[in-house]
């Protein structure tokens, strides 16, 4: 029997309650979540009332694995954290270990590191731009970006022998002497890059649809950005000129002339502008680094017992052989203590917290990954907006799920 209807205030109010929101499960299998991200959306029609990111689908326990490996062995794990910017992760880990041990890396290695990490930044931003564009329907930009990224991958391969899991940076310097002629290859790529960036900008920057899809979408004020711990382009697009490379220079970044790119839009479009400008800025740094890299010189610090001896030394001197054997069997033991080393990865502040108890294996390694923290801002960005904007917002935070879940 239907309930009798009485005309009273209370019944009207309960009867006129809002319809139940629809719960939509976006991901973990969804083309625009950039991996296995799951976002639980509560919808009113197409409007997002609540967004809750659910992560952990790619949790591989890298931090735990590090505890049972020697310091040098851990480097290969760092590639897998942010698989779009492996060299940045290598650098973060190596810098932290070097700080813990107290090694001065030769300038040549530092410059090469700068060059390669900036190249990584370009390549990572290219992937971001491409995927962000295809999320919003611009298909060609995606393929253009990957075409250029391919060239950068070829440089990785030429230098380190690997396209993605490079592990090229080692504690104290580099893994190998870079092959001859590699700078010419880099030059060829970065000479072509500005033209390519113009090409993307031609397709997007003044495109009305692109502006309509990104301007005013995913607003994140400077206060909110800081409060939520956002870093990298996400923070700089809100007008905060915080860049680890400038604030806490590492690896000789203080010797380079570059600007921190900021924008005041606080929206997806501002982040697009910042990232594109950063690509150009990175090219500038790469040019400077190419001029500075000395043709000759050590590519690794010399510290017996910690840095592996050169091949020649290992084969000719008994100490070298012993050190080599010791480093590769039991590793080396830095002093007990903790360090926190931050670098500016393409996604923001990548911090490596390393605690040593004086044994050859790190007692605890923690990667403060920018994606993990930046992803927290997602509800802030997209609540109250449309589903289509969720896609733009996920894209604009530039997350890498490997980095989020570690």
């Amino acid at each position: 029997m239907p309930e009798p209807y009485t005309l009273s205030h209370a019944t009207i109010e309960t009867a006129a309650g809002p319809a139940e929101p629809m719960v939509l499960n976006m991901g973990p299998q969804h083309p625009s979540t950039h991996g296995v991200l799951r976002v639980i959306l509560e919808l009113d029609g197409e409007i997002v009332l609540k967004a809750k990111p659910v992560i952990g689908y790619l949790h591989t326990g890298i931090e735990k694995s590090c505890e049972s490996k020697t310091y040098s062995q851990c480097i290969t794990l760092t590639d897998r954290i942010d698989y779009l910017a492996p060299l940045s992760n290598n650098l973060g880990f190596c810098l932290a270990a070097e700080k813990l041990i107290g090694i001065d890396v030769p300038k040549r290695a530092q410059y090469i590191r700068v060059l390669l990490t900036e190249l990584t930044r370009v390549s990572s931003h290219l992937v971001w731009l491409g995927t962000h564009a295809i999320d919003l329907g611009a298909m060609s930009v995606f393929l253009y970006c990957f075409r250029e990224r391919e060239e950068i991958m070829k440089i990785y391969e030429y230098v380190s022998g690997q396209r993605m899991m490079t592990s090229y940076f080692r504690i104290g310097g580099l893994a190998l002497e870079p092959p001859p002629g590699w700078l010419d290859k880099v030059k060829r790529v970065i000479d072509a890059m500005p033209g390519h960036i113009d090409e993307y900008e031609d397709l997007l920057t003044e495109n009305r649809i692109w502006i309509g899809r990104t301007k005013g979408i995913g607003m994140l004020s400077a206060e909110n950005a800081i409060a939520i711990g956002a870093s990298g382009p996400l923070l700089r697009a809100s007008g905060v000129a915080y860049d680890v490379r400038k604030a806490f220079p590492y690896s000789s970044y203080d010797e380079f002339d570059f600007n921190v790119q900021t924008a005041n839009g606080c929206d997806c479009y501002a982040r697009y502008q910042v990232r594109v400008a950063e690509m150009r800025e990175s090219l500038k740094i790469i040019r400077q680094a190419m001029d500075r890299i000395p043709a000759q010189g050590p590519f690794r610090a010399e510290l017996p017992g910690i840095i592996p001896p050169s091949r020649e030394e290992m084969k000719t001197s008994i100490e070298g052989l012993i050190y080599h054997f010791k480093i590769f069997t039991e590793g080396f033991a830095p002093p007990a203590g903790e360090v926190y080393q931050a670098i500016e990865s393409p996604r923001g502040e990548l911090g490596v917290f390393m605690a040593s108890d004086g044994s050859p294996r790190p007692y605890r390694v923690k990667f403060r990954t920018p994606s993990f923290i930046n992803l927290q801002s997602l509800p802030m960005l997209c609540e109250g907006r449309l589903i289509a904007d969720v896609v733009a917002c996920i894209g604009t935070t530039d997350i890498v799920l490997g980095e989020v879940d570690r």
Partner: protein
Amino acid sequence: MNLSVVPVSYYLVLSAVLFGLGVIAFVFKRNIITIFMSIELMLNAVNLAFVAFARAHNHLDGLVFVFFVIVVAAAEAAVGLAIVIMLAQNRQSLNVERVNLLKF
């Protein structure tokens, strides 16, 4: 019976049958939207009769009427469905038995 031509009466009978089925649907159905649809069915049946008569008398007035009926039906659907949506949001139900506020 000569089956090579179709007398207008056939159309009229069909129209009557459809109208009757519309009435039955109107009475039987409990869902507001389906009730609404049975009204449309009745309107359609009447339209058919109009067109058939227009044909029988070779006069276009019937067609004009059909035209107006269709237009009015469109207006009716717009308002009616808006009301249905409001109703559904407020009552969480489309059953006419639950929406009997206007019943005395």
